[in-house]
Structures are given as C-alpha cells and as structure tokens.
C-alpha cells in the first residue's frame, strides 16, 4: 500500500483552497456544562487527495471533530468555530436541509461498525441504492462493486447485510459512498477497528486506492498507530480535546515533539519487549491517575508530563509552528526544562 501516486501529489502542490478548513473549533456537551470542552481549539485544513489522521485515546475528541464537521452532534451541543468551511461553505451556518444535501453527497461518513449501520431486514441492494442516491441502479451498483474486487457481493445484492462478513460490508459501504455519490470528502471513524488484521489491510488498501483514483480528501480517525502510519499523509495527535501535535506522518513517527506523542509511540504493543516490565515500578499495579480538573490556565497534559515546568501550570501552550510541524508544548522536542545542554538523541 504505497500512497505515493501522481494525482494527489499534484493536488497537494496546487494552490487550491483547502477542501476542509477548520479554525478554533470548540464543542461542548450540554449535559455537563461545567466540564471542559470536548473539543477545544482544534484547527486544521485538508487538501484534496490528502489523508489526515486523527489519533488519540478514547475520549480525546476525535469522533466529536468528525461529527462537528457533519453537524451530527447531539441536540444541545454547543459548537463554535472561527471557521468551519467545506470548500468555502460555512458549515455552521447551513440549515438542516442544506446539510442533508451535503451529507452523503459531497461528504460521506464511513462508520466504525458496518454491521449496525445497515438494516438487517431490508435487502442490501435497496439500502445501497438509497445510500448511492438517484441515478444508480442495481447494474451500476454491481459494476462499482466489481471494480473494487467485490464480485461476491455484487452477485448478492438481493441478500441481506448479515450474509456478508464485516470486512466485506465495510468495503461495500466505503465503495458505495465514495464511488456512487462521488463525494469530495470522506470521514472515516475507526473504519477498521472491528475487523481482523488481514481484512483491515484490504479495507485500508481500498481507501488508498479510492483516494488515488478520485482525489478524495480523507479524515481518518483511529487509535491504532499502525493504521495511521501506513495510510496517512499528515497526522493530528489529540489529547483532552486538543490537537497537541500536527505533523507529516514521517516527522511524527521519526521525530515526535510533544511528550504525549512520544509516549503514545512508545506504548504500542509492537514495541513491548518480552521479559521487560511494561510500566515503571511506580506505575505498575496502581489505579490509573485520575486527571485533576484541568486548570483553566495551565497545560492539559500537565499531570502526566515528565517535562512539566512551572510555566506549564500557569500558561496553556498554544499550537505553534515548529520545524515543519505544529506543536502545543512549552518544552517541545526532547529538551528537559530543568537541565541545560543535555545531549539530545533521537528515538
């Protein structure tokens, strides 16, 4: 699965306006008015043909960002943004009807669980035709599915969703939403989390193929760093509702700047060493730290940060450019605030 292909490369170089442009997005859930924002000061833009990954633990606000773009947040959610534009259309100002015209047609969502996203009592073909929009008949659907190697499904459009495997269903959904309606933007919310690794590889390959063929812009939410490393061009690392580091996939994995990014990368099971403890002694066998209420002025990562200084307690860091990336940290890189001139080595 090599993402390097000419078409997106050209798209990346063209000075076109971004497909998706988000500045200072904030989302608050109503049922917890005192709580801090579920999403706070999230800014990024996405060009055509680009795959942007959003990675972070559960609860870090990844899916909320996608739902905010689709305007699918639950009732009573408060959303504000300096800019929330899709191809120049201010999404926050669209009425529900206009949003419905955009959703599924110009921007499509790939759900996490394909099984629960389709009805088990309506024939597959009928649901897919509805998803694909007017002008797509069964013959065209079957043709689209054959194009991506899903012959087995193309022959069974009168069947039901439960007769297919999870991997087949997910690929069907991606194919139909991406090829039939030809959207410009695909929002994928953990598209492979429920799939076997061998099947996951197929789904990710399909995403890359469609991106190359159609020049789709894709936002891929995942907590799996392997998936991110193998598919994305750029990555935003989310922590406590904020993007703490936004960098090209090469920089992020090769030279992570934020302490949280470094810890995420170090904790992947692929890096566990057999026979060595996974956690430092002080951490083993203890209830996880409860995050104290975030100080309104300090850094959200303060409690868990090995490099925190006094400044981190009083002044929240902004997302600032650093080299080719953006980092939300007062002490980025490997610099220890307390020591000076310490040799810095790379991971």
């Amino acid at each position, binding site marked *: 699965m090599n993402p390097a292909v000419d078409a997106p490369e050209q798209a990346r170089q063209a000075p076109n306006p971004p497909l998706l442009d988000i500045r200072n997005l904030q989302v608050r859930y109503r049922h917890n008015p005192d709580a801090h924002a579920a999403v706070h000061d999230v800014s990024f833009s996405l060009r055509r043909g680009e795959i942007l990954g959003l990675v972070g633990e559960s609860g870090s606000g990844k899916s909320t960002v996608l739902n905010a773009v689709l305007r699918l947040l639950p009732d009573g959610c408060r959303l504000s943004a300096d800019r929330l534009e899709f191809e120049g259309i201010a999404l926050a100002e669209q009425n529900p009807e206009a949003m419905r015209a955009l959703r599924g047609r110009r921007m499509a969502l790939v759900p996490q669980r394909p099984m629960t996203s389709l009805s088990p009592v309506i024939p597959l073909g009928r649901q897919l035709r509805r998803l694909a929009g007017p002008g797509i008949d069964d013959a065209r659907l079957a043709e689209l599915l054959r194009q991506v190697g899903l012959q087995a499904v193309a022959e069974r459009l009168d069947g039901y969703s439960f007769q297919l495997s999870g991997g087949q269903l997910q690929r069907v959904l991606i194919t139909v939403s991406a090829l039939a309606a030809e959207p410009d933007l695909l929002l994928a919310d953990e598209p492979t989390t429920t799939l076997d690794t061998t099947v996951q*590889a197929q789904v990710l390959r399909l995403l890359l193929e469609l991106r190359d063929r159609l020049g789709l812009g894709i936002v891929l939410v995942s*907590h*799996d760093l392997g998936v991110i490393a193998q598919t994305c061009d750029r990555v935003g690392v989310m922590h406590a509702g904020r993007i703490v580091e936004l960098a090209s996939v*090469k920089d992020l*994995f090769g030279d992570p700047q934020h302490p949280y990014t470094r810890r995420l990368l170090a904790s992947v099971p692929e890096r566990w060493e057999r026979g060595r*403890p996974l*956690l430092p002694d002080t951490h083993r066998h203890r209830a*996880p730290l409860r995050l104290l209420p975030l100080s309104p002025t300090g850094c959200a990562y303060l409690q868990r940060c090995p490099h925190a200084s006094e400044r981190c307690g009083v002044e929240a860091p902004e997302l600032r450019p650093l080299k080719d990336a953006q980092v939300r940290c007062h002490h980025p890189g490997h610099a220890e605030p307390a020591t000076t001139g310490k040799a810095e080595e790379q991971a």
Partner: protein
Amino acid sequence: MSLIRVESVTKDFVGARTVADRLRRNPASLMRAVDDVSLEVPSGQTLAVVGESGSGKSTLARMMVGLTEPSAGSVTIDGVAMSGRLTPAQRRSVQIVSQNPWSALNRRRTIGQALALPLRAHGLVADHASCRARIAELLETVGLREDYADRRPADVSGGELQRVTVARALAVEPRVLVLDEPTASLDTGVKAVVVSLLTELKERLGLTYVLVTHELDVAYYMADSVAVMFRGRVVEYGAAETVLRHARHPYTSLLIEARPVPDPAVRSGPALPDPSPRRPVGDTTRGCTFRPRCARAVDACATERPELREVEAEHLAACPVSAPTTIRFPRAQPPGPHENSQCD
C-alpha cells in the same frame, strides 16, 4: 506433567434450518468450529491461542472451562475432565475472563455485588463482614481502591472494568485463567496496564493462563507457547519465540505481515484475497484449507490435507512446504531508554 491437556477436541455446531428446510426435511448442516485440536499447558505457563475471528479460538476457550461440551475428544485440567457434571470445587479450578467487560457485568449492580456473587455461590465467605473484607482484598489484588466496590460499571473506565472481571474470576481462587481477548477493547496505554497486571498476578498467585487473542504482540509478550488456529485447526504450535519469530506456516507469516506497522518507513505486507467460505462437516474436498490464500501452494496442497508435524524440535506446523520466514517480529523497534513508556 501438564496441568491442562486438550486431547483431539472437536466441536460441531448445528447450522440454522429455515422453515423451508424443515418442510423439505433437509437435515441440519453441521459446522466444525474446532477440528481435532490437541494442546498441553504445563503448570505456571501461558499458552496463547491466536488466529482470525471465526478460527475457533473462543469455542476452544469455552470448552476449556466447561461452558461448551466438546463433540469429541476431551479437555482435562489437573486430571479432571471439563465436561459433564462437575462438582463446584472442580468448577472453581478454572475461570474465564471475557472480552467485553461492559457486557460481562450487570450495569445495575455495584462492583461489590458482582464480586460477592461467586463468593456466596461457592460458600467461600461466612458472613457479611468477611465478604466485605474479601471483596476489598480482591480489589486490592487487581490494583483498585476499596471504594470501587460501591461503584457501578458505568462509573469506571474500560481498563478498570476489565480488572474487575479479573478480580471476579480470581474470587474462587482458580488455578487456571482462560483469558478471552482480555485487551481487545482497550486503548494501548490501558492495554499495557492490564497486561502488566495479568503478568504480575500469574507470578504472585501461581496461575496458569490460556490467552485467546488476535493481537500477536500481546501473545508474544505474555505467552510461553503459541498455537495458531485457522478454520478450527491448529496450523502451527510451539514456543512463542519460535512460532512468532521463525514462523513456518504461511498463515502465521500472513498474520504477522498483515498488521500495519507503526512506522511509516516500513511498508506493511500485501492485502490478501478474501477468505474462502467455511466448509461444512463431511465435505470430502481434500487438500489444505489455506490453499486459496497461500502464495507457496504446490500441487500436493490441492490433494492432501497437511497434518501437524514436527518441523524442528518442539515446533509443529501443518504445512508441507514450510520454510523459515525472514519477517521481522516484533514489527517495531523497542523505544529508546529515554522514552517514557509509562501509562495510566
């Protein structure tokens, strides 16, 4: 002497029959979920059973704790066959921890009530006070504070909830824990905490583990031996170090390679053709079930079903063309010494 012995275990499930099938008096189809599996786990060791979904891992796990009756063969733990009627003491010797802690606990009951149930059912506590004390002790064993007993599942995180299910399994003081995907639903940081806890408990309490997982890295970290299952059969079996680092069966290599590497500089393996449909019992098609997906298949694979045989000392593989692989495992470099892998 092995504590757990799985001998030629087979499990057939009866397929669904539609009304039309019944009217036509079509016989029910049988699906073979587990096919002639033999394994052994010495006391104090960990066996990992790995494979894709549908390979029969969980069915095997359920047979090990006596929740599913084998169609043929037997599972014995410490000389006691885990089928038919078991005495409470025999049932206590092995416990299962399930994949999804949210569905394993009643969300209307407190964690304390969940832990009290096995204690009372097995008559292990005399009165309310000793029950309370034992619950506090169990929570402490898995690294949770005593006040968690009054919380409900919705009030605690996924990692903490998984520890509660471990505590509940430990309540009856088993010798064997069957862990069915204990970390599948957890974030990587929390995963490390749960795996650390399980590793420590095994040493401290002298437990024997059977770990069912699709995460090869978790298997590699925790297990002494690994059995790779495909379509209900064990296709490779041996020490964890041997099986995962020097895989002989193409399916094992496939599982290792398919995992996306968390390093953009290393490209993951190729995507593979769709798995062929599962074959019903009595299907006389000969040949290797893995053949449709196998890159190494030779003519003989179409006619002969490969049996598990020793390819080197204490390393079994069911493949006639098995060759040592050159795939690197684990797939990523361990972190440097300055990197802080603490997780909470």
